[in-house]
């Protein structure tokens, strides 16, 4: 009897779910991060269950909750159209804009069925609930001089125009799409490990300014970017690029700053530059990376002994140390490879001559 009753209940529930789905309406729970540092000793989560229609966004759901369920819930939002960048937050663990995140799409990504988790962006101080403090990011924008300091003398301003070629425009066109939503900042692996790190949004903006011919402080900016916690600390995890709500290839911008640093300041300028250049040297010489001397070539003998000696001893015991340079076997056919590699070096030289003439 019991099992028959259970079966009937089960069918009733199934019918309700199917009906709701067909109508494009269903009950959805938003598990929202709450924290008011002035009152709460620690953060907590509140569950809000509302009836949500197909097509509704996470932001509209939060607006509904604030208007009809809990006016104390705090979040930032403005344009509701993916333009202003105000409503960056983590939805189901991923940093994004809540105004362009469809509830129906998010339901497929829930860890617990039917429960959408909403949290503030990471790596930024929390002001209240989903509102984070953007000031540290703004301060970094200032530290790296992320504005155009015009090459045009003040007296000529307004009398002459700046001509920007189409080729130059395309170099920073995509970077100017950034709306400073800070999703990339929230996803950055290194910023999570050290709050001093420059952060991807700041690097992107620095790149955008540094490739602009109207700007006069390229060298000042670059000198700051190669210091500690700057461009060489990026660990190439691509989380910034993957989370960018405007699909900006942020890593390409970071790589371009590094390429620029190697060209303008030389390969021996910083440990990051030395490390990168070592790859080029080894490939030309052996076609293979000479890992045994990579730490020394990057940071010198003293650093290597102090930092890596205990681990090197363990590796010797386990027979997993990289072979010393003379024992690194060059790739088969290295002679012809080297000739081709050097031929490409000539091409690169010619390219540089042409671009400098321009």
């Amino acid at each position, binding site marked *: 009897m019991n099992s028959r009753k259970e079966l009937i209940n089960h069918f009733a529930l199934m019918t309700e779910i199917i009906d709701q789905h067909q109508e494009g309406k269903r009950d959805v729970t938003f598990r929202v991060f709450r924290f008011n540092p002035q009152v709460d000793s620690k953060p907590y989560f509140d569950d809000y269950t509302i009836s949500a229609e197909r097509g509704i966004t996470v932001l509209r759901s939060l607006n509904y909750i604030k208007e009809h369920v809990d006016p104390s819930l705090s979040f930032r939002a403005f344009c509701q159209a993916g333009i202003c960048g105000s409503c960056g937050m983590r939805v189901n663990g991923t940093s994004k804009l809540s105004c362009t995140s469809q509830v129906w799409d998010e339901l497929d990504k829930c860890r617990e069925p039917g429960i959408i988790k909403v949290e503030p962006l990471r790596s930024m101080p929390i002001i209240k609930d989903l509102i984070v403090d953007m000031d540290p990011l703004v301060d970094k924008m200032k530290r790296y001089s992320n504005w155009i300091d015009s090459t045009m003398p003040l007296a000529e301003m307004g009398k002459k125009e700046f001509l920007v070629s189409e080729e130059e425009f395309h170099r920073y066109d995509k970077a100017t799409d950034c709306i400073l939503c800070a999703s990339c900042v929230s996803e950055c692996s290194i910023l999570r490990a050290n709050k001093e*790190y420059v952060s991807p949004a700041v690097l992107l903006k620095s790149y955008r300014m540094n490739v602009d011919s109207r700007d006069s402080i390229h060298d000042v900016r670059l000198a700051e970017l190669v210091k500690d916690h700057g461009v060489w600390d990026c660990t190439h995890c*691509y989380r910034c*690029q*993957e989370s960018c709500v405007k699909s900006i290839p942020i890593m390409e911008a970071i790589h371009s700053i590094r390429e620029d640093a190697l060209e303008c300041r030389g390969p021996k300028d910083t*440990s990051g530059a030395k490390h990168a250049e070592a790859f080029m040297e080894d490939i030309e010489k052996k076609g293979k*990376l000479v890992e045994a001397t990579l730490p020394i070539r990057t940071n010198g003998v003293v650093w290597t002994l102090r930092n890596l000696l205990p681990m090197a001893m363990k590796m010797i015991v*386990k027979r997993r140390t990289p072979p010393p340079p003379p024992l690194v076997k060059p790739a088969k056919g290295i002679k012809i*490879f080297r000739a081709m590699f050097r031929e490409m070096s000539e091409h690169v030289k010619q390219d540089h001559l042409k671009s400098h003439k321009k």
Partner: protein
Amino acid sequence: MKRYAYYMSCINESMTKEVDRSIDFWQKDLGLEFVKLHEGTCCGGSNLDYVSPKHFALVNARNIALAEKMGLDLIVSCNTCLMTIRTAKKKLDETPALKKEVNDILKKEGLEYRGTSEVRHLLWVLVDDVGLDTIKAKVTVPLKNYRIAPFYGCHILRPSTVLGRDNPLAPSSLDQLIEALGGQTIPFEHKNRCCGFHTLLVAEEESLNVAAEALEEAINAKADFIVTPCPLCHTVLDGYQAKALKQAHIENSIPVFHISEMVGLALGYTAKQLGIKRHIVC
């Protein structure tokens, strides 16, 4: 027998020799034949692309062209080599002028980059080509008592415009492989996170913090071991483990396996044969 050209990553010829060694044990068991590319050169390790974009295109066009000459797909067992070579391939396929410039040089060696060979990870070959059912049927020592934390690493997932096999937010291929071998995957927040390898020599403290977070989660979840498809992730999570955990004030340890070793164990090879004893943590 399915044949592939096998790219020999620098790290697998120096610090993580056990990767290629363990693959050699079981490749025939799974109907695979990997032809080693001894002429292949370093891919540039996610650095050459900005040191010199044109040399980056040349060396990787050559790596792929060597496989194309044999009419085979190029198989890679290091995430960063995979991402790097696929990035170069995308650039070459999208930029005819670069492809022509590179091919004019490659002619010297009788090579031509055409873009006909795919560049794929060993993990994808196991899951997609060999297939989970075949793998299940070949298992002789199921990993049934093991709770396993799958650590995918970055460069098999991101950038997704270059990789594209797994959903970078919810990857599943490694989980599927673990289950096919009879193991139990555990929910692991850090499965798609970073190991910190690429800044180990430049920002060591930050890199070790990144690694310690992943290790800590696996330890707290009482995983028996972490498994990774990337020898660079392995180097941090195993080789630098003691240093990372010390920095994070965590007194514990956890073994880290390569996927090639995990497959070998389930197919009946011993830890000693597979080189697991050579790990720093074992």
